[in-house]
Protein backbone atom coordinates (compact mmCIF):
# COMPACT_ATOMS: atom_id res chain seq x y z
CA UNK A 1 0.00 0.00 0.00
CA UNK A 2 1.32 3.41 -0.93
CA UNK A 3 0.91 5.91 1.89
CA UNK A 4 1.82 9.58 2.16
CA UNK A 5 3.42 10.56 5.45
CA UNK A 6 3.06 14.24 6.33
CA UNK A 7 5.78 15.49 8.63
CA UNK A 8 5.55 18.41 11.03
CA UNK A 9 8.04 21.24 10.69
CA UNK A 10 10.17 19.98 13.58
CA UNK A 11 10.83 16.62 11.89
CA UNK A 12 11.54 17.82 8.37
CA UNK A 13 15.24 18.45 8.91
CA UNK A 14 15.56 14.75 9.79
CA UNK A 15 13.98 13.90 6.44
CA UNK A 16 16.21 16.01 4.24
CA UNK A 17 13.77 18.89 4.41
CA UNK A 18 10.85 16.88 3.03
CA UNK A 19 7.36 17.74 4.29
CA UNK A 20 5.78 14.64 2.73
CA UNK A 21 7.35 11.21 2.24
CA UNK A 22 5.76 8.40 0.23
CA UNK A 23 6.13 5.01 1.89
CA UNK A 24 5.03 1.42 1.40
CA UNK A 25 3.43 -0.69 4.08
CA UNK A 26 0.49 -2.86 5.12
CA UNK A 27 0.25 -1.38 8.59
CA UNK A 28 1.20 1.85 10.31
CA UNK A 29 4.23 0.00 11.70
CA UNK A 30 5.24 -1.14 8.24
CA UNK A 31 4.83 2.37 6.90
CA UNK A 32 7.04 3.68 9.70
CA UNK A 33 9.69 1.06 8.98
CA UNK A 34 9.85 2.22 5.37
CA UNK A 35 9.92 5.83 6.54
CA UNK A 36 12.96 5.30 8.78
CA UNK A 37 14.60 3.16 6.10
CA UNK A 38 14.40 6.17 3.77
CA UNK A 39 15.32 8.64 6.51
CA UNK A 40 17.27 6.91 9.34
CA UNK A 41 17.55 10.14 11.33
CA UNK A 42 13.82 9.93 11.94
CA UNK A 43 13.98 6.68 13.88
CA UNK A 44 15.01 8.23 17.19
CA UNK A 45 12.37 10.93 16.80
CA UNK A 46 9.52 8.52 16.18
CA UNK A 47 10.25 5.29 18.03
CA UNK A 48 11.52 4.29 21.44
CA UNK A 49 14.30 1.74 21.92
CA UNK A 50 11.65 -0.97 22.14
CA UNK A 51 10.11 0.05 18.82
CA UNK A 52 7.03 1.77 20.21
CA UNK A 53 5.75 5.15 19.23
CA UNK A 54 7.00 8.05 21.32
CA UNK A 55 4.26 9.30 23.61
CA UNK A 56 4.86 12.89 22.60
CA UNK A 57 3.98 12.15 18.98
CA UNK A 58 0.46 12.17 17.57
CA UNK A 59 -0.15 10.00 14.52
CA UNK A 60 -3.32 10.28 12.45
CA UNK A 61 -4.39 7.81 9.80
CA UNK A 62 -6.49 10.06 7.59
CA UNK A 63 -8.81 11.64 10.17
CA UNK A 64 -8.32 9.17 13.00
CA UNK A 65 -5.90 9.12 15.91
CA UNK A 66 -4.16 5.74 15.61
CA UNK A 67 -4.40 5.32 19.38
CA UNK A 68 -7.97 4.24 18.68
CA UNK A 69 -7.12 2.06 15.69
CA UNK A 70 -4.54 -0.30 17.16
CA UNK A 71 -1.56 2.04 16.91
CA UNK A 72 1.29 0.48 14.91
CA UNK A 73 -0.86 -2.51 14.00
CA UNK A 74 -3.55 -0.43 12.31
CA UNK A 75 -3.91 -1.46 8.68
CA UNK A 76 -3.32 1.16 6.02
CA UNK A 77 -4.92 1.39 2.60
CA UNK A 78 -3.60 2.57 -0.73
CA UNK A 79 -3.68 6.35 -0.91
CA UNK A 80 -4.02 6.80 2.85
CA UNK A 81 -2.32 9.68 4.61
CA UNK A 82 -0.42 9.44 7.87
CA UNK A 83 -0.08 12.83 9.54
CA UNK A 84 2.49 13.21 12.30
CA UNK A 85 2.22 16.05 14.80
CA UNK A 86 4.06 16.61 18.05
CA UNK A 87 1.86 16.50 21.13
CA UNK A 88 0.98 19.96 22.36
CA UNK A 89 0.97 19.75 26.11
CA UNK A 90 2.41 21.19 29.25
CA UNK A 91 1.55 22.11 32.78
Amino acid at each position, binding site marked *: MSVAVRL*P*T*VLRSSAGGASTVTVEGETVGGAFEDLVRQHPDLRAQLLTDTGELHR*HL*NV*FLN*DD*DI*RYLGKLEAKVGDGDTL*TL*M*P*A*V*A*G*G
Partner: protein
Amino acid sequence: MHHGTFDAVLLMPTEIFELMVAHCLDGYPLEACGLLAGTADRATLAYPTANAAASSRVYAVEPRELLRADRDAEDHGVELIGVWHSHTHTDAYPSPTDIAQAPDPAWHYVLISLRDVEPVLRSYRVVDGTVTEEQVEVQ
Protein backbone atom coordinates in the same frame (compact mmCIF):
# COMPACT_ATOMS: atom_id res chain seq x y z
CA MET B 1 13.72 45.04 15.50
CA HIS B 2 13.00 46.21 19.03
CA HIS B 3 9.48 46.00 20.44
CA GLY B 4 9.08 47.84 23.71
CA THR B 5 11.10 46.00 26.32
CA PHE B 6 11.56 42.84 24.28
CA ASP B 7 13.32 41.85 21.08
CA ALA B 8 10.53 39.58 19.87
CA VAL B 9 6.84 40.21 19.37
CA LEU B 10 3.51 38.48 18.96
CA LEU B 11 0.88 40.53 17.15
CA MET B 12 -2.82 39.79 17.37
CA PRO B 13 -6.19 41.41 16.88
CA THR B 14 -8.21 42.30 19.96
CA GLU B 15 -10.71 39.52 19.21
CA ILE B 16 -8.04 36.85 19.59
CA PHE B 17 -6.71 38.34 22.82
CA GLU B 18 -10.22 38.38 24.27
CA LEU B 19 -11.03 34.90 22.98
CA MET B 20 -7.96 33.40 24.66
CA VAL B 21 -8.73 35.00 28.02
CA ALA B 22 -12.43 34.09 27.82
CA HIS B 23 -11.61 30.47 26.98
CA CYS B 24 -9.30 30.26 29.99
CA LEU B 25 -11.89 31.80 32.31
CA ASP B 26 -14.47 29.35 30.92
CA GLY B 27 -12.22 26.41 31.67
CA TYR B 28 -11.43 27.45 35.24
CA PRO B 29 -10.78 25.72 37.67
CA LEU B 30 -9.11 23.46 35.11
CA GLU B 31 -6.34 24.55 32.77
CA ALA B 32 -7.60 25.60 29.36
CA CYS B 33 -5.66 25.61 26.10
CA GLY B 34 -5.89 26.56 22.48
CA LEU B 35 -3.91 27.07 19.30
CA LEU B 36 -2.89 30.13 17.35
CA ALA B 37 -2.41 30.25 13.60
CA GLY B 38 -0.98 32.92 11.37
CA THR B 39 2.33 33.79 9.84
CA ALA B 40 5.55 34.08 11.87
CA ASP B 41 4.75 36.74 14.48
CA ARG B 42 1.17 37.58 13.58
CA ALA B 43 -1.77 35.55 14.89
CA THR B 44 -4.79 35.72 12.60
CA LEU B 45 -6.77 32.68 13.76
CA ALA B 46 -7.36 31.17 17.18
CA TYR B 47 -8.69 27.72 18.02
CA PRO B 48 -9.92 27.12 21.56
CA THR B 49 -9.45 23.41 22.17
CA ALA B 50 -10.35 20.88 24.82
CA ASN B 51 -7.80 20.08 27.51
CA ALA B 52 -7.62 16.31 27.12
CA ALA B 53 -5.93 16.09 30.51
CA ALA B 54 -8.90 17.86 32.16
CA SER B 55 -6.63 18.96 34.98
CA SER B 56 -5.94 22.06 37.00
CA ARG B 57 -2.22 21.38 36.77
CA VAL B 58 -1.50 20.05 33.27
CA TYR B 59 -2.91 20.43 29.80
CA ALA B 60 -2.87 18.51 26.55
CA VAL B 61 -4.48 19.78 23.39
CA GLU B 62 -6.98 17.11 22.31
CA PRO B 63 -5.15 15.47 19.36
CA ARG B 64 -8.07 15.43 16.93
CA GLU B 65 -8.62 19.13 17.55
CA LEU B 66 -4.92 19.69 16.89
CA LEU B 67 -5.31 17.95 13.53
CA ARG B 68 -8.44 19.92 12.68
CA ALA B 69 -6.78 23.22 13.56
CA ASP B 70 -3.71 22.34 11.49
CA ARG B 71 -5.87 21.56 8.47
CA ASP B 72 -8.03 24.63 8.90
CA ALA B 73 -4.97 26.84 9.15
CA GLU B 74 -3.64 25.29 5.98
CA ASP B 75 -6.99 25.88 4.23
CA HIS B 76 -6.62 29.56 5.17
CA GLY B 77 -3.10 29.74 3.82
CA VAL B 78 -1.51 30.05 7.25
CA GLU B 79 0.02 27.66 9.76
CA LEU B 80 -0.05 26.93 13.47
CA ILE B 81 2.31 29.37 15.20
CA GLY B 82 1.64 28.80 18.85
CA VAL B 83 -0.37 27.60 21.79
CA TRP B 84 -1.97 29.30 24.75
CA HIS B 85 -2.88 27.80 28.09
CA SER B 86 -3.84 28.95 31.55
CA HIS B 87 -2.16 28.62 34.89
CA THR B 88 -4.91 28.51 37.44
CA HIS B 89 -2.88 29.43 40.52
CA THR B 90 0.64 30.25 39.36
CA ASP B 91 2.23 33.03 37.34
CA ALA B 92 1.98 33.60 33.60
CA TYR B 93 5.39 32.06 33.05
CA PRO B 94 6.26 28.69 31.44
CA SER B 95 6.54 25.95 34.04
CA PRO B 96 9.35 23.35 33.87
CA THR B 97 6.79 21.05 32.23
CA ASP B 98 5.93 23.72 29.66
CA ILE B 99 9.60 24.17 28.84
CA ALA B 100 10.36 20.46 28.63
CA GLN B 101 7.33 19.70 26.43
CA ALA B 102 7.42 22.73 24.13
CA PRO B 103 6.66 21.10 20.78
CA ASP B 104 8.16 23.57 18.32
CA PRO B 105 11.02 26.08 18.73
CA ALA B 106 9.38 28.37 16.19
CA TRP B 107 6.18 28.70 18.19
CA HIS B 108 4.85 31.37 20.50
CA TYR B 109 3.83 30.18 23.96
CA VAL B 110 1.12 32.30 25.54
CA LEU B 111 0.51 31.94 29.25
CA ILE B 112 -2.59 33.28 30.97
CA SER B 113 -2.55 33.39 34.73
CA LEU B 114 -5.84 33.29 36.62
CA ARG B 115 -4.10 33.54 39.96
CA ASP B 116 -5.39 37.05 40.64
CA VAL B 117 -8.71 38.75 39.97
CA GLU B 118 -7.36 40.24 36.73
CA PRO B 119 -6.05 37.64 34.25
CA VAL B 120 -2.46 38.22 33.21
CA LEU B 121 -1.39 37.32 29.66
CA ARG B 122 2.23 37.03 28.60
CA SER B 123 3.94 35.38 25.66
CA TYR B 124 7.26 33.62 25.27
CA ARG B 125 9.59 31.84 22.90
CA VAL B 126 11.03 28.55 24.16
CA VAL B 127 14.11 27.42 22.28
CA ASP B 128 16.37 24.60 23.50
CA GLY B 129 15.08 25.02 27.02
CA THR B 130 15.65 28.76 27.03
CA VAL B 131 12.66 30.98 27.74
CA THR B 132 12.52 34.50 26.32
CA GLU B 133 9.58 36.76 26.91
CA GLU B 134 8.21 38.67 23.95
CA GLN B 135 6.06 41.73 23.53
CA VAL B 136 2.35 41.10 22.97
CA GLU B 137 0.88 43.75 20.67
CA VAL B 138 -2.89 43.82 20.50
CA GLN B 139 -4.32 45.78 17.58
